[in-house]
């Protein structure tokens, strides 16, 4: 398969890494050929990110050896990894919002081109060469996700990396942006770089990768050839089960309107419109999907419905009650479940045990509380139920939620929000960063509840998920709805066009 005369870009041999209570990696072997895109796949918590952090010197392995371009190295810090030619784009962006693009870019590499005009020129050069479209003097907080993603890759290139690690770079991108990214990756490959690429989206993996390594439970369980492998085989390798599909069977939409927004407008403190004249209705048993490039008002829409922001004008009805000015707590008590976009910021108390996290957002309702008192026993018992029903993998319900892998945290949140039979579910990216097994479970839970009459507002960046689950799809752009689509006939490409302002 590999050209024998060439030295492998990276060889990882027998890597092991233990955290308190967890073996993140053991006996990991990976070989990356030079000038290739190498995909690393595996379920949540399989140890992919940990392995990459080891390769980038952020964490030190307990066992094993790393060989880069034929030289065995010991990486004690990212500095040494950078010197060895490794660069990494993290799953969670590593950017300082309050600094400019230039400052983020030159940080730690000031020696290369200074921190002034020399650097500015070099950034423009890289930006033009790969079509990154980056302005060095803009504050990072002003950038959208895709631009941040490009900035992260540019940072790596700026340092002259030859081995580039991308940890789930596509999770937040729309198809057009993914295509653009892949275009960039091919350019990089052509320039002789090696790319290590992690994703949960198997068709993307098949589209871009030259080699595939599969991880399971902390170790490498096999490789696959993208030319011959199918999505089903990969899923089989990853989780040992069938590839799930979000596809819903038949419509369960009823006539009863559960949620309606009429002409909702939201302005910020400077009088700019964040949301403009949004109207929508969701009936019982209906899933309404919202598609849009991140930062076009989805988060604000969700927060407005959830009472975390009060609309400047317009009306929100829940059933036949006007809830425009209700607080979050009243809305939750009225039976709205909420799966927030950012589980760390909005969904969990990271240092509190699981059973206390079960109470969060349900403080005023049984089984979490009795009157003004917390019902510890009831909450604990119900947490056990969620852990069992939703297959939350955790040592126990007294574990702090921080200790769970992202996917398991998400399952806990979904379980919590589905309890107490909500009438309306507001779900933002319910399966983001979740492995295929857990994805299937979450979809199943949503589908089952929908059959029982649950109305769902689904915001997602995963267009397959949107198309599969939704009964109707609305596209949002700059705070306005710019198109309504029927999921049975729309393609991801159509949606992507509408999302980026093409013909609606």
């Amino acid at each position, binding site marked *: 398969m590999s050209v024998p005369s060439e030295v492998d870009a990276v060889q990882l041999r027998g890597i092991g890494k233990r955290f308190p209570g967890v073996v993140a990696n053991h006996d990991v072997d990976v070989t990356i050929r030079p000038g290739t895109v190498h995909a690393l796949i595996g379920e949540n918590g399989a140890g992919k990110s940990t392995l990459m952090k080891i390769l980038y010197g952020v964490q030190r392995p307990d066992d094993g050896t790393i060989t880069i371009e034929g030289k065995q190295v010991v990486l004690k810090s990212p500095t040494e990894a950078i010197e060895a030619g490794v660069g990494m784009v993290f799953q969670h962006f590593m950017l300082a919002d309050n600094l400019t693009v230039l400052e983020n870019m030159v*940080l730690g590499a000031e020696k290369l081109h200074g921190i002034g005009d020399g650097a500015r020129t070099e950034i423009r050069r890289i930006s033009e060469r790969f079509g990154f479209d980056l302005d060095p003097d803009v504050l990072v907080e002003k950038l959208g996700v895709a631009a941040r993603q490009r900035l992260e890759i540019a940072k790596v290139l700026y340092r002259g990396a030859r081995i580039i690690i991308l940890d789930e770079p596509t999770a937040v991108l729309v198809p057009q942006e993914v295509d653009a990214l892949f275009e960039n990756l091919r350019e990089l490959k052509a320039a002789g770089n090696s790319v290590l690429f992690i994703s949960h989206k198997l068709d993307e993996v098949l589209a871009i990768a030259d080699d595939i390594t599969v991880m399971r439970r902390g170790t490498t369980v096999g490789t696959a050839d993208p030319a011959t492998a199918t999505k089903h085989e990969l899923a089989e390798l990853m989780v040992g089960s069938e590839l799930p599909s979000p596809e819903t069977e038949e419509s369960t939409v009823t006539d009863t309107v559960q949620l309606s927004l009429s002409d909702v407008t939201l302005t910020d403190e400077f009088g700019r419109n964040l949301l403009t004249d949004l109207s929508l209705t969701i009936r019982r048993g209906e899933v309404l999907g919202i598609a849009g490039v991140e930062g076009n008002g989805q988060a604000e829409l969700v927060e407005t419905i959830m009472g975390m922001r009060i609309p400047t004008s317009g009306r929100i009805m829940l059933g036949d009650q006007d809830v425009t000015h209700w607080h979050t707590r009243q809305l939750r008590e009225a039976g709205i479940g909420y799966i927030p976009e950012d589980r760390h910021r909005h969904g969990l108390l990271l240092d509190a045990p699981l059973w206390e996290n079960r109470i969060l957002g349900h403080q005023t309702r049984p089984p979490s509380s009795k009157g003004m008192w917390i019902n510890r026993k009831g909450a604990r018992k119900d947490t056990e139920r969620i852990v069992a029903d939703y297959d939350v993998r955790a040592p126990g319900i007294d574990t702090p939620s921080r200790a769970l892998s992202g996917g398991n945290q998400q399952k806990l949140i979904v379980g919590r929000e589905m309890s107490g039979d909500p009438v309306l579910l507001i779900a933002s990216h319910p399966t983001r960063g979740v492995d295929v097994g857990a994805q299937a479970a979450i979809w199943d839970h949503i589908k089952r509840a929908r059959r029982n009459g649950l109305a769902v507002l689904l915001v997602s960046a995963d267009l397959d998920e949107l198309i599969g689950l939704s009964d109707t799809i609305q596209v949002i752009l700059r705070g306005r709805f710019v198109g309504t689509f029927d999921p049975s006939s729309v393609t991801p490409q159509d949606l992507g066009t509408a999302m980026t302002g093409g013909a609606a």
Partner: protein
Amino acid sequence: MSAATAQRSTIVERLTKSWLYIGLIGIGVVSFVRIITDTDDLTGAGTIRAAIIATCPILAAALGGLWAERAGVVNIGLEGQMILGTWGAAFFTYHYGPWVGILGAALLGLVGGLLHAIATVTFGVDHIVSGVAINLIGAGAATYLAEAVFPEYEGGGPRQLNGLEAPAQVTIPGVSDLANTISDQHWFFVSDVASVIQALTTNISTLSLLIFALVIISALVLWRTSFGLRLRSCGENPQAAETLGVNVYLYKYVAVLISGALAGIGGGFLALVASSGFSTGQTGGRGYIGLAAMIFGNWRPGGLLAGALTFGYTDSLRLRDTQSVHSLLLLVAIGLLMFAAWRACRKQVKGALVVAAAGALVMAWFLLTDSVPREFTVMTPYVTTMFVLALGSQRLRMPAADGKSYRRGSAG
């Protein structure tokens, strides 16, 4: 490339210009109030000199706060480090003269900073806890060491050490005299500017000049060098900095050490310039005020200078002349009304109305009384600070990772 340079210089120009305009408008308003109310003391060279002296220790502490917090470490221990500084200044000045004394003040402050750095950076202890402990230790250590050491000294006692030599003062002869002549004319605006110039060129302590210089140096180092960039990145996102090969621990250590040293210099100023000796408890909470000035100034050098000046000016004004505090009411009223107008221009109607109402109230107070009760004059600097913050606080932005403890290897 030339386009880039051009763009950059306009940014710098814009900043400098806006500061200049604000400063000029400020002096104009004060001058107007001075003439209307006939209180020459409002901008007398003596008042300005006193204001500078009252400002310097607060400014040094505020700068100390800036350095630490820009690197993500909240330093509530400034007060303790400042107290250590007063002792250090006294001890070293007594033995080796004022300049070694200032170094001694910095050194003792630095020891306080080191303690804070070890606790917060190496051990990841909560920054507030460590700061509170350092304030206890600083106050206790200075008192204890004074009692143990100073009674043996000439001019010393268990709680004081008097007669310390001050760092030299400088006067720029021609400028000073000319400014003096002009300021005595009590002309609108011109004389006020002359007063400021006079105060800055006549018998001004070199330590005051040093502290003002440190503001500029801090601004340049923090915002114009790669060292400063790395340091600030530790306060904004240390994980990101780490992934780019920045030695976060090192930068945090350096920042907190500098922070302690600056607070110590502030203490040294109290012992050597603001008075001529050490006495227990002489900081009187100025470390906390420095912290407040820094937050007031939005974690920026220019801003914290404004905060320290506001505090120093009002405090020295009320000490020198209780009557002038009454004139200050008019100043505040005008200030509020101008702020209201600015808000109205920006279409923040509700905010504008609130501010305008406040301005009208203060104006009414000014017009209907002819003095402010003494007790209230003491509160002036505190109330002013709260007022300004209540009106403008919404825009404050601290470094994103300020006060969060960080551990190596936690990136990703």
